Each structure stands twice: as C-alpha cells, then as structure tokens.
C-alpha cells in the first residue's frame, strides 16, 4: 500500500511541498504509523506533545521523515488530558522513539504503554507536577523557590512580576 493510500481517508492537509499534516484518531494511530514505516517513513524526526488546556486534551504529534520519498509527514492524535495513555511506538521505531517518549513522559506525564524504560531523564529530585503542562505556572514556582521576600536584592521580583 502506498503512503498516500494509507493517509487518504484521514483528509491530509498539504501545507507546502514536502510538508503534510494528518489527524488520526487515537485508536488507529499505532497501525497508521506502522504502515507508514513499512511504506518508507523510516526516520522519526521528533515526537511532541501540545497541552490544550481549554479542550482538555493532549495532542501527540509524530514527525516522520522518509529518506526516499523526501516528505515530512506529521501524524497528530488527541488523547484525554485526565487519562494520558497512548500506545508506544518503540516496537516500530526502536530506541529513537524510546528517548523521545521518555522525555515527554517526564515533561508532560503522558504514559506510553509498552515503552521499556520511562525513568526521569533531565530532572533530579523533582517533586512537582510535570513541568511543561500548561496548568503549572512556572514563574510563580520560580519566585517561590528562588527569590526570597526578605532579601533586599530580590524585592523587585516580588513588587513587579510578569505573568
């Protein structure tokens, strides 16, 4: 099956030459990516998560590149924010998917089912919520943690603070 046929039923959007975006439901995304890998999209450029707080969903984005077709195909899917579980693509892409998923698990708390190792990557002694979520206010956290109210040099940070 050619790659155009695989994505044709999901209404792909062509942004410009070599950039195609497609929305796939959560249940089918693993199969679509597996078929695309067989059709020649062998390079997983990146996996990303966007936190849509108002809609209550996480949008997981897979950027796939093909060395032969020379097209960047972005597969997007939505998972609920209160139950962020998605099937891992490690069986398809191997260790390159593992490291992206491990990072996203730490930063967003998304659980990738089937990933062999989701241990913390960058943060040491972190006890707060996953830091890249939209409902975690960074600047308030930083002000509480690093800028003291009593210290003279930090007073300005408590008087004027940007949101």
């Amino acid at each position, binding site marked *: 099956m050619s790659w155009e046929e695989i994505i044709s039923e999901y209404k792909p959007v062509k*942004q*410009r030459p*070599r*950039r195609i*975006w497609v929305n796939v439901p959560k249940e089918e995304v693993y199969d679509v990516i597996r078929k695309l890998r067989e059709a020649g999209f*062998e*390079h*997983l*450029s*990146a996996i*990303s998560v*966007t*936190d849509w707080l108002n809609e209550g969903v996480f949008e997981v*984005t897979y*950027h796939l*590149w093909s*060395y032969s077709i*020379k097209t*960047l195909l*972005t597969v997007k899917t939505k998972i609920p924010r209160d139950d962020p579980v998605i099937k891992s693509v490690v069986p398809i*892409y*191997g*260790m*390159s998917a*593992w*490291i*992206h998923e491990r*990072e996203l698990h730490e*930063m967003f708390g998304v659980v990738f089912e089937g990933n062999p190792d989701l241990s913390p*990557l*960058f*943060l*040491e002694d972190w006890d707060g919520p996953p*830091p*890249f979520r939209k409902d975690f206010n*960074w*600047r308030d956290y930083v002000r509480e943690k690093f800028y003291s109210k009593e210290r003279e040099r930090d007073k300005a940070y408590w008087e004027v603070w*940007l949101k």
Partner: protein
Amino acid sequence: MTENELWFYGLPFGPAHSGSGNFRVQLWVDGEKIVKARSDPGYLHRGFEKLMEYRMVWQDAVLADRICVLEPLNWNLAFAEAVDELMGWEIPERAKYIRVILSEFTRIQSHLIWFAGASIATGFQTGFMLSIGYRDYILENIFEPVTGARVYPTGYIRPGGVRWDVPKDFREKCEFTLKKVEEGVNDLERLLFSNSVFKRRTQGVGVLSKEDAVRLGATGPIIRASGLETDVRRDDPYEIYDELEFEIPVRDEGDAYSRFWIGKEEIYQSIKIIRQALDRMPEGPHTLRPVAFIKLKKGEAYSRVEAARGEAGIYIVSTGDYKPYRVKIRGPSLLHLIPVLEHLLIGSEVADVPVIYWSLNTCPADMDR
C-alpha cells in the same frame, strides 16, 4: 544483567572530565571491556521549550541562539525559519544569502571545535591548538563585524530577514577568512587525518552500521559516515540551497575515523558554498519591514535545518497570540548522545570512550535544552 550488576566495576565518565563536559555516562566494565553503558543527561537543562512560551517572538529569537553554544547561528536560523513559515513570509533574496553564508561559517567553526575535541581525545595537543586557533579567524573576521559579538549573535538571523546588513568590506573579509580556513584544514589533513597514530586510534572504533544508524535516529555527519547519502540541505532545501552546487560526502565504514573525515570534507563543501553565495549575492533590502510586535498567525509549522551535528528541528504551534503556544526543539545530540552512544559503547574498550564520544560531534547543550 540485574543481579550480576555487582560483579562489574562501575566507572562514571564525566561530568567533570576533560573528555566530556556537562554530561555523564555510567559505564559497567568487565576488565577493559564495557558491558553496559547508561547516559545521564540533564546537567544543562534550562527548559527552553517552556521559556519560549513565556516570551514574545523577538525575545525568542535572541533566546534561540543559546540552545547550543557551539553553533548559535544555525539554531537562530531554525527558529527564524519556523516563524517565517508560520507567518507565510517570503524574505528578501539578500537576507537568504546572508543567512546561508553565516550558517556555513558556523558549520565550519563548529567542525573545527569537533576536531579540537578529537585531538584531545587522542592525546594530540597540536591539533587542538591548530583547530581553535584557526577557528578564531572566523570569530574575529566574520562573526564580530557582522553580528556584533564573537559567540552569541543575539538573534542576528531573525524572523523576516537579518538584523542589519553586512559591513561594506564583507566580501574581502570572507575571502581572507576562507583562505585561512583552507590553510588550516590542509594543515589538519596533513597533521591529523594522515597521522598514523590518529588513524590507529580511530579506525575500526565505534562502528555503526547503516541499519543501526537509521534505527537509532542518527542524522547529519554520523549517518553519512555510515553510508546513507542524506542531507537536509539537499533533501528538504531551505533558503537558497536548491540553487547552489555542492556535494554530500559519504563513507561506508561507519567508524570514528570516517565520521571525522566526513567533517573535514564538509568544511571543503562549506567553503565552496560560501564562495558561490558570495558571487551571486544580490543587492537589496536585508529584511522585511520590521514590526515592533509580531502577532503570530494561528497554525503550526515544523522547520528543519542541517546543523553541524545533524538535523535541527523546531516545531512551533500558535493560537494567534504574541507568544507561541508551544515550541518543540528537536536537537540532534539527544539521539546521538543517548541511544547511539549507549549502543556504540557496549563491547568497546575503556580507552576508546573519549574517541567514540567525540566522534559523535555532540553538544550536550542541545540535548538538554
């Protein structure tokens, strides 16, 4: 491995080590042989993706070059490309040429640091002195007059063009620098690449096969040294790369020596690209009419740039605000330093760790972000 782990001697490599700054690999060794390796990143994690959400576009452009200190202008370019694509801007021709020239100079100086690291890893001080010495010609003659600073251009390549036009004597300076760089690389070729000690330390070390390179997500010089002819500049051209003539050096061995060799050949190709771009550079405006505050269009864009160490990508999502809603940075070193390095270290000898580490042309700053 789990219950037998105690039988092996644990050896940390880094973070305070002359071979690897700001990065640690925990090794388990059996005699001289490494049986297990585990990367431990995070010493430079600043949270760029979130910092960019809190700032406006011009501020993000300045922030973008801090992603990797060894090649700031390429990251600048990646961010500017992403915003240009999101806004649908067609930037002036002259700006494209300036961007390409500076990006190639950045690649050259980054590769020279790479060779300096290679020399340190093989105990060859002369190569270190030579590479860094020649790199300074680029910093002093190109980056400082053009961008205003030796290392960080503070957002010189910005969305919509470049910050200001190049100085009047730019062409002479470029030619002088290119001549010096050519001399330097010729020296390195004679002293480093045909040095029998260097060859014996690097040939056949850390062999990465083509299938493994694809599976582990290697890009840039690493995958080209394993025999796959791919380059973002050729396959997914941005700016004016589709009009320029250059070759993509490829080798089949996949060992450390061929990776360094690819870097050396890339410097020659970069010199060729800069000479072509200088000849064709048109007159005209260097930027679109600047706006004080950019209101981003609603939508998303993914830009890819061939940085010196592989594919650099920036994915930007906007809801139509002054600030981006989400920025995802795809650093090449994340893949090179964790899956590729762990794969290459298993079965190799302890003495080869610095060589393998440096042969991947890594920058921990763009891994941690």
